[in-house]
């Protein structure tokens, strides 16, 4: 059977109708809300070509609630007039009537009433004329009777201004028979049930087509954090390239491993209170490899291994100071030192991705802690060309192919090069990483053979992630102020499959 009694009636009427039906007229005839007819039209439309419905919109004038009241009981001014008896009425009393305020001023301006202020007990209102024509009520009655067109434009707009009339747009349907018109249609099934299968009734049932435009229901699921999804990809890239992961699970580091071992002098600005978090407790490292420490001390203060050194008074106390590591290169230094102790030397490729800490000014792209990605290759006879070759392969895996190298200065690498890639959006070259060959003053005191070179590069994890996921404020990505909806909605991280995805958007 059809969809409810209204639809049934509609179909029967339509069968008898000559040409078609207007939904509003039908509603009026059936004494139904227009919306009920519209509902029936929609459900019939969903069944296919049974009916055709053309949307029409017509404008109509209707009375407002106040307009309806005036239509019934007369305008405020007429009601005021009628409440004034021939002997007059105290103004104060008149004002208390429901129509008093509005009606009084209108009746005054129509010159139907007057006020006598000379009476003893306050101003008194008297009729001026004997009877009045309630023009407002008459006009509203015309509108109610569907004859609004009989009023002039000016009269209508005055009533509209008084908020007695309002113009409404009525959306109606012009309903006509469709190509598959029938008065007896059966309801389509929305779902296939086990009963239909066992009884075999599904063979004879019509099924409702799926609505592919609607959204499906998302499954309940957990989600991985986008930054860590990108971390997983970077780990994967390093592993694909044969790099072994370094242990980095030590946020607390001594200044020795973080700076001195890297030949970063003790007066270097990075070792300033303004840049580095120092520890109050435990304030100092308890053990340092003293043999090695002495070699580092000598290299800083006097030189050696072919170096002039920095020629300053190197202090052990300064090296003992504990800090929150400012870069994962501290972990690389430890790894290279361990490598140097293994004889004979075996080539190594290392990587790490972990947190580092800076006591810096915070802004939309900088936090006090971030993740650093680092790659290191140690082998005999490595060159700057090798470094560039490894970087090219690494960045190609990130979908970045246009690379350029700029001379730069890092305290612990020489030669050093900043890596730039061409940014399609900004139409300029932007820095994507930093790299170099570790200085001999860093490697030789560790005990690495003289002809072994170590190439290394680093970049932050946050920056490519922000570019990839289009995030402008780092706090929405990292930390407790994260937008969980963003975490729920973030797509997979497929850096290689999205050529240039890391360059697609503007960065800061």
């Amino acid at each position, binding site marked *: 059977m059809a969809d409810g009694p209204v639809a049934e009636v509609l179909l029967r009427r339509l069968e008898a109708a000559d040409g078609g039906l207007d939904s509003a007229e039908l509603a009026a005839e059936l004494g139904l809300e227009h919306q009920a007819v519209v509902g029936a039209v929609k459900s019939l439309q969903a069944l296919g070509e049974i009916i055709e419905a053309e949307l029409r919109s017509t404008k109509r004038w209707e009375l407002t609630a106040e307009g309806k009241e005036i239509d019934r009981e007369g305008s405020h001014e007429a009601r005021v007039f009628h409440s004034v008896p021939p002997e007059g009425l105290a103004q104060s009393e008149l004002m208390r009537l429901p129509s008093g305020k509005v009606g009084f001023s209108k009746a005054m301006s129509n010159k139907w009433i007057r006020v006598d202020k000379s009476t003893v007990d306050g101003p008194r209102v008297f009729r001026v004329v004997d009877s009045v024509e309630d023009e407002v009520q008459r006009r509203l009655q015309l509108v109610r009777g569907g004859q609004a067109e009989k009023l002039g434009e000016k009269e209508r707009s005055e009533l509209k201004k008084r908020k007695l009339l309002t113009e409404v747009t009525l959306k109606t349907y012009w309903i006509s028979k469709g190509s598959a018109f029938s008065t007896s249609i059966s309801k389509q099934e929305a779902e296939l049930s086990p009963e239909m299968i066992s009884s075999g009734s599904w063979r004879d049932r019509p099924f409702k087509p799926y609505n592919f435009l609607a959204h499906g229901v998302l499954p*309940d699921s*957990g*989600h*991985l*954090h986008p*930054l*860590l999804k990108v971390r*997983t990809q970077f*780990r994967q890239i*390093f592993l694909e390239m044969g790099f*072994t*992961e370094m*242990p*980095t699970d*030590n*946020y*607390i580091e*001594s200044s020795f491993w973080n700076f001195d071992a890297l030949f970063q002098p003790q007066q270097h600005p990075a070792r300033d209170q303004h840049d580095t*978090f120092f*520890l*109050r407790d*435990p304030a*100092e*490292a*308890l053990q340092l490899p003293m043999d090695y420490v002495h070699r580092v001390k000598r290299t800083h203060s006097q030189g050696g*291994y072919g*170096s*002039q050194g*920095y*020629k*300053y008074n190197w202090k052990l106390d300064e090296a003992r100071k*504990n800090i*929150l590591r400012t870069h994962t290169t501290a972990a690389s230094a430890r790894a290279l030192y361990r490598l140097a102790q293994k004889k004979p030397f075996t*080539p*190594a*490729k290392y990587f790490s991705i972990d*947190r580092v800490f800076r006591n810096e000014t915070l802004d939309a792209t900088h*936090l*006090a*802690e971030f993740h650093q990605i680092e790659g290191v*290759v140690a*082998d005999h006879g490595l*060159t*700057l*060309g090798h470094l*560039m*070759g490894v970087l090219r392969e690494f960045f190609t895996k990130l979908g970045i192919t246009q690379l*350029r190298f*700029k001379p730069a*200065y890092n305290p612990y690498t*020489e*030669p050093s090069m900043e890596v730039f890639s061409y940014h399609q959006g900004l139409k300029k*070259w932007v820095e994507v990483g930093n790299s170099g*060959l570790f*200085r001999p003053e860093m490697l030789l005191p560790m005990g690495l053979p003289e002809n072994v070179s170590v*190439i290394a590069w680093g970049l932050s994890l946050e920056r490519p992630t922000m570019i990839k996921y289009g995030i402008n404020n780092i706090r929405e990505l990292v930390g*407790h102020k*994260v937008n*969980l909806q963003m975490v*729920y909605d973030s797509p997979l991280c497929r850096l290689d499959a999205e050529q240039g995805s890391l360059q697609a958007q503007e960065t800061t």
Partner: protein
Amino acid sequence: MPTVSVKRDLLFQALGRTYTDEEFDELCFEFGLELDEITSEKEIISKEQGNEKAQGASDVVLYKIDVPANRYDLLCLEGLVRGLQVFKERIKAPVYKRVMPVGEIQKLIITEETAKIRPYAVAAVLRNIKFTKDRYDSFIELQEKLHQNICRKRALVAIGTHDLDTLSGPFTYTAKRPSDIRFKPLNKTKEYTACELMNIYKNDNHLKHYLHIIENKPLYPVICDSNGVILSMPPIINGNHSKITVNTRNVFIECTGTDFTKAKIVLDIIVTTFSEYCENQFTVEAAEVVFPNGKSYTFPELAYRKEMVRADLINKKVGIRETPENLAKLLTRMYLKSEVIGDGNQIEIEIPPTRADIIHACDIVEDAAIAYGYNNIQMTLPKTYTIANQFPLNKLTELLRHDMAAAGFTEALTFALCSQEDIADKLGLDISATKAVHISNPKTAEFQVARTTLLPGLLKTIAANRKMPLPLKLFEISDVVVKDPSRDVGARNYRHLCAIYYNKNPGFEIIHGLLDRIMQLLDVPPGEKKGGYVIKASEGKTCQLNPESVIMK
């Protein structure tokens, strides 16, 4: 990286040609500089203080150029121009000479009182120099750049430049009680004692940053001439008496400090850069400095050092195949005059006093590579054969993360640093019981300690996401830090897993179920038998499943 701001037109005039912005940017890139910004004084003021204040300011185009932190010789227009002109082979690197004066040499005598506060001093004279407004401004600016960088905000070295014609040597560098120092400082109209000055400068936006260097010392360093005229009270301020102007012809330069090597470098940089404007170009008049032990030295050092590097070493480190002659030519373009000697494979390189950054052969290799052009180097892959290994802890973490998400929990990523309150008071614990490491110099309370538990971060994540539909199911696998005297640094990380379930009803069974699931994934059976796990209640206001409360048998 220091930024040097130079007038574009003045720069082009000195370079003898003009460039488009793009061309100049390209040149900078090649040389290892960065054209950071193209602006004007007007634009800078308008950006910082609004359009009104910028009215009438100069709209001469300025180039802001980033200079590598170890290239002190490029910190002003003169140095940049000389470096670029030599690089483009338009001029030969000048040879700087120290010369003896015609008359008596200027002497600076250091007394032993300086030993405890600022023991080193060096000096030199620029004779018959000719300033113009632009040269003078650049001279002052270079000192400021040196102060900010190699001088470590004047802590290591402070520079004083004086009109020698207003003074009469020999000069004395000593240290006196602040109340005994009285002079008219630069740009003031009356005399003050050192104590008064330190008070006045507390409100000086520029000088207040240097006061701490001597503030609490019993004696302040001071330099005076033979008549007792005070030249300067380093590292704070010069005297007004010997102030230099555009018209000054003879400049006495003194650098005092706590780092002798850096003081000598700073002096060398100033005199080499500005001796260009002396009547006898690139000559510097010597000054004698007598140390408290009676030993006397002549400055500036202007030392030229010879280094020998084999051509094949350069080729091998860079990954190129250039002839020794070509390599020598490349190095010469980098201000390192080089020639092939000996067996034809040796290159002798002269390191000028302007290149204090060259301390090892690797620095020379880099310069050869820069002159060759980094982007001309053939990229090759090293043949290094290695087998990759994952760090076992991270490998487990990666596996678990995915299964936590599969169990319906969403991954959070919270800060490793937090306030004491977060890990102690708010969890009903005493801070001393947490064994947390404490940061000595946090700028705000958010960075007082490293977290000892992941719980506060997850709770804060929930607090910040209260608008999200319930339930919230979060987890994090990350490191916490606690003190551990058995470790070399006295602290260690632990990898923790924390999960949290937030809904209108408590649902302990859900988080309990997750724990059981994790144990299942880790192949740990429930129960009291060996190798199993049990849950025990723990003390404290939070009913958290501490590592201590999940007991592995």
